[in-house]
């Protein structure tokens, strides 16, 4: 009981603020927060790969895009039920992540980077050419969704609340996963895959499982984003999405799960500010990206962690004490 209380008490203010937000801020800002939550979930799912499993994916937009198109097609052609859309998005990304992951987890290091990148790009050209289904490069509009008939989520406030609940649940599931024995297993594989085999682990299976979970959660965020934007185009699968998600993870700090969510806020706010004043925000983003690699390889979250570990060097819970995996040499 006490343990439960200590785990949940700090979360109450955060939950209260999130729940009260629609009363406090404008619809425009609420939309920005919704987008931050959705991308925060995408970044957290990518962190499961990059930070925890040591699998540096450059193509996480694959799952964001697959989930997005699946949810969009359900809303357009089958039912406006938001949950049906998300369930289908999850199932379809599950299949895609299993197939692509089966190939990808067999490779290492740079090959893994290239292969994940290639998957995303192949999907990109697929949705661009498969015009009858996807609307091609013009994209397709997505009808508004509802929880049940009559309870439409077409207002910014309602969709925001739905997003808070969905993203919150997914985040808690991810957190539980990294704190579980499975989480310890994938961190072990990140640290030393050969040693894991020698103590009995079928490491490929664990890597594929982590890859698939990351894909499904990424797919859910993609589905949410399509439902929120009421529109989807090949831009949702573009390389820029993969890169953006990776920037969020790096900026927020790899191997922390919450760091990438902070990174999502930082990157989206920065992008919005920049793009309002200046057309070429990608340039600035690229510079920020390079500066982070040079000067703050652990990201913002990693910096906070370094401070914390300076205070208590011996205390190390296995999930959060992960070293900035970005600096660690990928086992080739």
């Amino acid at each position, binding site marked *: 009981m006490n343990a439960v209380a200590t785990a949940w008490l700090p979360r109450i203010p955060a939950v209260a603020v999130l729940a009260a937000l629609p009363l406090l801020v404008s619809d425009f800002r609420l939309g920005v927060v919704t987008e931050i939550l959705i991308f925060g979930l995408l970044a957290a799912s990518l962190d499961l790969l990059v930070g925890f499993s040591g699998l540096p994916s450059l193509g996480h937009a694959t799952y964001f895009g697959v989930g997005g198109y699946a949810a969009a097609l359900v809303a357009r052609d089958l039912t406006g039920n938001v949950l049906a859309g998300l369930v289908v998005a999850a199932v379809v990304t599950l299949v895609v992540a299993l197939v692509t992951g089966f190939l990808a987890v067999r490779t290492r290091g740079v090959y893994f980077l290239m292969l994940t990148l290639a998957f995303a*790009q192949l999907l990109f*050209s*697929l949705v661009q050419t498969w015009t009858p289904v996807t609307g091609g490069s013009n994209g397709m509009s997505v009808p508004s969704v509802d929880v049940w008939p009559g309870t439409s989520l077409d207002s910014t406030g309602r969709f925001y609340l739905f997003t808070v609940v969905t993203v919150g649940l997914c985040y808690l599931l991810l957190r539980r996963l990294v704190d579980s024995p499975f989480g310890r297993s994938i961190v072990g594989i990140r640290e030393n895959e050969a040693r894991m085999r020698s103590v009995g682990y079928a490491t490929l299976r664990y890597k594929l499982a982590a890859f698939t979970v990351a894909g499904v959660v990424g797919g859910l965020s993609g589905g949410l984003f399509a439902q929120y934007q009421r529109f989807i185009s090949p831009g949702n699968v573009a390389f820029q999405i993969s890169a953006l998600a990776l920037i969020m993870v790096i900026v927020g700090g790899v191997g922390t799960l919450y760091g990438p969510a902070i990174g999502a806020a930082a990157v989206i706010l920065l992008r919005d500010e920049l793009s309002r004043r200046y057309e070429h925000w990608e340039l600035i983003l690229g510079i920020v990206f390079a500066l982070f690699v040079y000067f703050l390889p652990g990201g913002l979250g990693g910096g906070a962690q370094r401070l914390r570990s300076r205070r208590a060097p011996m205390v190390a819970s296995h999930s959060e004490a992960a070293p900035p995996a970005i600096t660690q040499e990928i086992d080739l």
Partner: protein
Amino acid sequence: MEAIVDWFNAHTVSILNGLARGLLLFTLAIGLSLIFGLMDVLNLAHGALFLIGAYVGFSLAPDGTGFAVAVAVAVAAGAALGGVLAAAIHPIRRRGHLDQALLTLGIAFILSDLSSIIWGEDFRALPPPSVLAGSTTVLGRPYPTYRVAVIGVGIALAVVVYVLFERTMLGATVRAAVSDHAMLAALGTNVEAVFGAVFAVGAALATFGGIIGAPVLGVRPGLDWDVLILALIVVVVGGLGSIKGALVGAILIGEVQSLGVALAPDVAAFVLFGAMAAVLLVRPEGLFGDVTAA
């Protein structure tokens, strides 16, 4: 047998186009492969170099005259940019592949956006140099002379690179360094200078590919990412660090793309994916990849 001949006759143009595309990809893939093989760096800014090469052609030879000068400028610019990239990567040489890939990714974004600031967002077509305008008869069919020249130049380049790296002392030094970085230093070679030079050569090849490819592919924002991805697939299929792999992989991907679009446009993306997946299932390190390099 006759059916096969008929099939080839019917698809001569597609096959030649695939060869031209493949050889253009080779100019990109060979640089990626060499830089990775020697420096252990995945240079994701390689596509941006290709794009910049193409834009140099557009700026200096917009109507096809002065193409040779433009090529020289593009190559020089590529070499210079390669030197800059090598210097930028130098401080994080000891870090992991992901850090290096991320840095070059950031640089790719910067170069990509700078290009669209300088050259705009529109699609630009570039006519071939006037001496190579028009068409030639190849295998009984008219085919653009310029593309024939691209194929010829690509093959010549492949031969030169192959001879240079597989048959000369210089190549032997570089290959030895690929398999044992420490050895090069022990021999008293200035390792940083060699790395800088390889980066410059790889980058110059990319801008060269960009400018000679411009009259075939056109120039537009986003071309950098498209060619980067294709080059990465080539390297995955061919095997990192292998010249033969880069060439065979490039021609294979060029043909799969060209014939795939001609024969089955709806599933062309799947065909490309399928080709890559098939190779990887059988040989995860690529067709000509060195297992130890993976």
